[in-house]
């Protein structure tokens, strides 16, 4: 394998690992604020119980997000120097604003939020919680601005092969930004809803039936049920926007080779890039045309339009985009079914009335948000190839001239570390859940000395 492909795998692995944790912290920050405000308003201890458990998950996720984010900032220099050299005038200020307006805010107030409750007045602690949530959302905003600009660049001119900003408003509010930002925020809230629902269901099953578990489970399921239709609607809008700006990506998502009307929606297919056709298609007639243009005979772009005169392929590899898109949408549909069924049961019979299979279903879907989020990002990012900045800079031109063996060695090292940490993270979340269910007071002290365990 050459340096380019190894660097791409390495970047993909690093960003995939990183995004898992912001996806949790962006929404969990607001959920914690919600718990805190409910407690302030009602004085009921169950809200504080929920807060105390989930703040630990937040702290752990935040640390994972921070350290993997630092890796991200160095990657540009170590692996993609061409990126900053070409579009640094635009990417630079956006990243700088992220550090200045978001990272410091959340990093400083995190300390107060986690450890300051007994040292500062209640309102300041609530404010710190708010500022941390606000900071993570700001991080997401700036990085999504940059990422969206890479998909739909505007507001700049090229001088001697280097992009120069001409209109910052146009750069920040580039055409795909609002859709991508909204879709990402919703993805984050859904990920957290299913995480909370799954872990709470787990605690319920193993006997930790406290008021805090009940209220967390209910909030999470109702939240998911409300947000998932919005997400599907946003996803549709996002797709229409992509059709306008990156038709080759839509063509790959639908594995549609020839431009034309009455395009079917493929439920299953094995796209073959070499032969430029699909095998084993199972399709619903006209549906792709209907979804994308709202007419059964609407014209959908095909991949064959994106091949240069000399045979150079200017569209992404089809199978990866096609399948990751289906994984995302499939997960979304599963989320819809499960959250609505559970919400309906909750409304009629309460948490006690939830049948076992539903509880197990929730546990099984604990990390479904991660799956959909990663699949969505793979669709987005692989769908942009061979471009790094659509139409401006190709991935090939940005890669660093370091020996392949060196990239391979760091790639292996990262993969090992990430696999271990991911395993440890998931184990620790369920360990905390089991301890809480056993009724042990979740002692946040670093040293779990012989804590007196109250009888069950």
């Amino acid at each position, binding site marked *: 394998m050459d340096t380019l492909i190894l660097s791409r795998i390495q970047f993909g692995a690093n960003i995939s690992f990183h995004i898992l944790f912001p996806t949790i912290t962006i929404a969990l920050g607001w959920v914690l604020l919600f718990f805190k405000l409910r407690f302030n308003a009602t004085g009921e201890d169950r809200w504080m119980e929920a807060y105390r458990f989930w703040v630990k998950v937040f702290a752990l996720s935040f640390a994972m997000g921070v*350290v993997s984010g630092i890796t991200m900032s160095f990657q540009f220099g170590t692996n993609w120097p061409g990126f900053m050299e070409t579009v*640094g005038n635009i990417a630079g200020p956006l990243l*700088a604003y992220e550090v200045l307006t978001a990272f410091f805010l959340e*990093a400083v107030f995190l300390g107060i939020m*986690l450890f300051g*409750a007994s040292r500062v007045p209640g309102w300041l602690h609530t404010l710190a919680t708010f500022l941390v949530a606000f900071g993570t959302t700001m991080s997401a905003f700036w990085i999504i601005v940059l990422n969206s600009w890479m998909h739909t660049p505007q507001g700049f001119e090229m001088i001697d092969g280097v992009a120069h900003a001409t209109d910052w408003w146009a750069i920040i509010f580039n055409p795909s930004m609002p859709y991508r930002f909204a879709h990402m925020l919703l993805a984050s809230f859904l990920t957290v809803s299913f995480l909370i629902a799954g872990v709470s269901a787990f605690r319920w099953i193993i006997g930790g039936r406290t008021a805090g578990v009940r209220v967390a489970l209910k909030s999470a399921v109702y939240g998911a049920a409300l947000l998932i239709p919005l997400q599907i609607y946003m996803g549709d809008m996002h797709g229409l926007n992509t059709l306008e700006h990156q038709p080759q990506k839509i063509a790959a998502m639908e594995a549609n080779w020839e431009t034309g009307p009455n395009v079917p929606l493929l439920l299953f297919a094995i796209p073959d890039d070499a032969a430029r056709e699909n095998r084993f298609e199972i399709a619903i007639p006209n549906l792709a045309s209907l979804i994308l243009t709202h007419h059964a005979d609407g014209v959908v772009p095909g991949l064959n339009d994106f091949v240069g005169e000399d045979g150079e392929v200017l569209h992404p590899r089809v199978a990866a985009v096609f399948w990751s898109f289906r994984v995302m949408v499939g997960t979304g549909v599963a989320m819809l079914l499960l959250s609505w069924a559970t919400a309906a049961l909750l409304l009629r019979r309460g948490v006690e009335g939830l049948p076992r299979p539903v509880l197990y279903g929730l546990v099984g879907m604990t990390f479904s948000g991660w799956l959909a989020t990663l699949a969505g990002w793979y669709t987005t990012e692989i769908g942009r190839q061979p471009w790094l900045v659509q139409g401006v800079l190709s991935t090939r031109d940005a890669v660093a001239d*370091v020996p392949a063996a060196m990239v391979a060695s760091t790639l292996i090292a990262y993969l090992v570390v990430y696999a271990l940490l991911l395993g440890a993270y998931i184990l620790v979340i369920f360990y905390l859940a089991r301890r809480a269910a056993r009724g042990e007071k979740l002692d946040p002290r670093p*040293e779990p000395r012989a804590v007196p365990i109250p009888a069950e």
Partner: protein
Amino acid sequence: MDMFSDPALWLPFVFAGLMGLSILIYVVLDGFDLGVGLLFPFANEGEKDRMIGSIGPFWDANETWLVLAVGLLLVAFPAAHGAILTALYLPVAVMLIGLILRGVAFEFRAKAPPEWKRLWNRAFFAGSLMTSMSQGFMLGMYVMGLTWTLPHVAFALLTAAFLTVGYSFIGATWVIHKSDGLLQLKAIDWAKGGVWGLVLGIGAVSAATPYVSVRIFDKWFSWPEALYLAPLPLLSAALVVGLWVALRRMPFDRDRRSWLPFAMATGLWATAFGGMAYSFYPYVVPEKLTIYEAASAPESLFIILVGTVVVLPTILGYSILAFTIFRGKARELRYD
């Protein structure tokens, strides 16, 4: 002066200054976090918890200065950023993995099953060690002009060791300030043992730099510059002596001035850092690329400068707030 009328002249200078400032703040602040990690094997279980307690609320914000520093390098001097980071590809990777281990070990040691705690303590130490060593190594390579020859690597290994001892020293001075009783006495001993690392490290870099380049030699040893610069080495020497004397007498009566060694250590870093900045200016890639050649377009730099001027004081403000809220002797960390 017409220097100020042309932003292409003063903006790179201002940004080099900002970048230098955030690196300095980083090495002092995360320096003490890393130092605490390096001292971990010397402490017993209870002491470990208190040491963690002394840095728990701060380390994340401290580390953010590194993100700002590399961010400024990346946004203000994109060409240099690529050149430096590709030349230092492997040590950067080692540092990143070190930072990852260090950062997550914090959380895991408190939350994982007790059987795993020893493992995470080790990861905390190993991560701090990897980070300090690789940073010291990169410093050495940078001073030597970023070329991988045997003598340069040997020199870089030396600076790696010195910086590591230097970090454990500043970590020890932080523990002196944040602890009392037996732990404080122990920390005073650690600091006494570590001060030489700093002295040798600063000495090695100061001695080596002038020999790497005639330009730097002339900057230091020509008349009358040598005279203007004399306060820098003299101040450093005075601080070293002051530290030595203070450490021998500590702890002072009723724990007064327990912050003194940390403050003096910070001063020492700052003078050493100032000297280095003076040597390398105007180069950002030593002897190859000046800050003026490497700088981004003035419009983009200006946009960032406006933000920085507004936001940096705010950041300093709430950082001071955090340090005030968590002032005093470290307690065990509790979420409530």
